[in-house]
């Protein structure tokens, strides 16, 4: 059991937890903003894959992880354009469009990847590190936490910034009202279309970032169907967090823990079948859904297209 407590082991464990939690967190924050504005995006799985793929390609081409992350965000926005135009603007069925985005995202990234990268598997190289002076010298935790990539810190700041914005700014208030009662926003002189459009684009950018984080930092490569249901877990996390981004962050960490436990056990000598490791997050999620079923409340206007006058 001494292995379990060794400093190196804990360092790796914490780093794994973070690496697994971050993509989910980013995607769930994106989904939260979308849902708060009244748009449920079932396409998030596909958006993440597109983000993961574009991020991967851009990083390979430019050699910069930072530009790669940007590429992922842009890819996510592009993938979400279908939701923007067909649902927010034309008021068509969110479920059908969401599923279409997921299917197309899965299909196209798989086709493109196998077409371009199977013959010569590409490697991304060393990710940028950002050692925070002083803090990163703290034993065990310091290494795991404060020697993360700068991208990690930017993503954390971004998330905290959005949490603040959603709670304390006029933009946040408008966004939340678009999901609660769009007619109120309209009557107050705000624009439901503009508010929802911004939320959907932001949501796409964040899901794309989540995907790119996954392919660039967590797994350090792309493969077809890389997300394997992570987008749907993000939707569940969003449902359970009821629009509170800090709760999203904590639940994502719990997910990271659940995923990191498998490999950790393996280090200690328990062999856990890979299938169980893959299933575990879903089992945890369904248990959470059963336990917290009563409290998984969604905004009242979620899924309802808004037409002025028809209300």
């Amino acid at each position, binding site marked *: 059991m001494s292995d379990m407590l060794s400093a190196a082991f804990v360092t790796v464990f914490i780093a794994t937890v973070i690496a697994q939690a971050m993509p989910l967190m980013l995607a769930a924050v994106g989904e939260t903003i979308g849902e708060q504005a009244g748009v449920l995006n079932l396409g998030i799985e596909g958006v993440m894959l597109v983000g993961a793929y574009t991020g991967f390609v851009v990083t390979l081409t430019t050699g910069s992880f930072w530009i790669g992350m940007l590429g992922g965000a842009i890819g996510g926005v592009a993938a979400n354009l279908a939701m923007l135009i067909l649902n927010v603007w034309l008021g068509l069925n969110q479920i059908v469009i969401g599923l*279409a985005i997921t*299917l197309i995202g899965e*299909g196209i990234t798989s086709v493109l990847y196998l077409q371009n990268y199977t013959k010569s598997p590409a490697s991304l190289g060393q990710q940028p590190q950002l050692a925070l002076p002083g803090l990163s010298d703290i034993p065990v935790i310091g290494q795991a936490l404060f020697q993360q990539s700068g991208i990690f810190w930017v993503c954390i700041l971004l998330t905290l910034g959005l949490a603040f914005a959603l709670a304390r700014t006029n933009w946040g208030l408008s966004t939340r009202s678009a999901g609660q009662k769009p007619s109120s926003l309209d009557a107050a002189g705000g624009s439901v279309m503009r508010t929802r459009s911004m939320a959907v684009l932001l949501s796409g950018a964040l899901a794309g970032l989540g995907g790119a984080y996954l392919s660039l930092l967590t797994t350090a490569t792309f493969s077809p169907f890389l997300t*394997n249901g992570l987008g749907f877990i993000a939707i569940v996390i969003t449902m359970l967090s009821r629009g509170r981004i800090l709760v999203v962050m904590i639940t994502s960490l719990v997910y990271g823990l659940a995923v990191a436990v498998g490999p950790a056990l393996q280090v200690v000598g328990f062999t856990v079948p890979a299938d169980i490791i893959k*299933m575990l997050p879903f089992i945890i999620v369904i248990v959470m859904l*059963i336990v917290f079923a009563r409290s998984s409340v*969604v905004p009242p*206007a979620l*899924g309802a297209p808004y037409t002025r006058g028809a*209300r």
Partner: protein
Amino acid sequence: MKPTGSAPRLAQGLVRSVVPVLLALLVSGLIMLAIGAHPLDFFAGVWKYGITGSNWQRSLSLMSPLLIVAIGLIVAFRGQLWNLGYNGQYLLGAVVASGLGPMLFAVMPTALATIIVFIVAILTGAVWSLIPALLKARYGTNEIITSLVMSFIAVGVVNLLIKGVFKDPGTSTPQTTVIADTDLLPYIPGTEIHIGFVLAIVLAVVAQYVLSRTSFGLRVDIFGASPKAARHMGLNSTWMVILLFALSSGLIAFAGSIDILGQFSYQRADWDPRYGDAVMPLVFLARFRPVAAIPFVAFYAVLATGGTLASQQAGLNVDFLLVIVGLILLFMTVTEYIGERHRLGQSYLPPGLRRSLPIPVRNESERMPV
């Protein structure tokens, strides 16, 4: 529900169903061009490998599971229950056939074993749907999410079974024991199409009759149109949710078991044909009518049968089919939008579905102020 009939209306409805497919094929061709593949090779390959020679028989064999999955989806969708856990439900049914099948065939007559396999598969699927159904009925938890999550769990369970208790000790790859040809479903005389095809067609006709002509079908439609109305009419919505979910999930699992006993004869770990993803847009196009789904399923069966080889030939891989399916979904909503504006044909069933997720509860006075 109500008498249709007039020929022009039928024609318009047909247009609205076929146009999305054509547009999707067109745009997917453009995408192929854009990524440097050869659309003409692809479509020629689909024709060649999907229809010519005896390939049409393979396509018809594929129709059997696809059509039963379609009926399963229709049953749930008509009640406005979005059972999207079809991949897991299908695999569960399949693994019952591939795992339990060989054990049963060893000890009892083929016919009896086959029936037991079917029953166990259906029950497994039905039981697996209980969690999403109960959460939906009790707390209104979004069934899309719960059924999807249960599907991912099912995939894991199936893999564990295939690598564990159901593993064929004779091979090193994780797969189940191959079922002997004599224990598989018989062919339709003179063809190489197993009788699952006939079964699927019969099921479609029966389902069509039940859904459109009986009080049960009307109850499903009321429930689908408005759960609030259903409650008002005295329908027990808890039972309705559980029953429809169980029927839907059971049928999809049944499709899995038929596919193993009719076609594949064994199952490998990590195998997932994802039929449901492909069938889902088709049932929308068929406007949730089982019989109307037959031609659409036939179309996709050819596309899928021919598409596997054709996509390789065209410089793609088989996942490109997902793109085509996704495009059909997108164009379906667009066609619907345009059709709605110009009142072409009739719409894809209940108004609640046409708009979006939860039907907002509205008061009459909140309509257009006049």
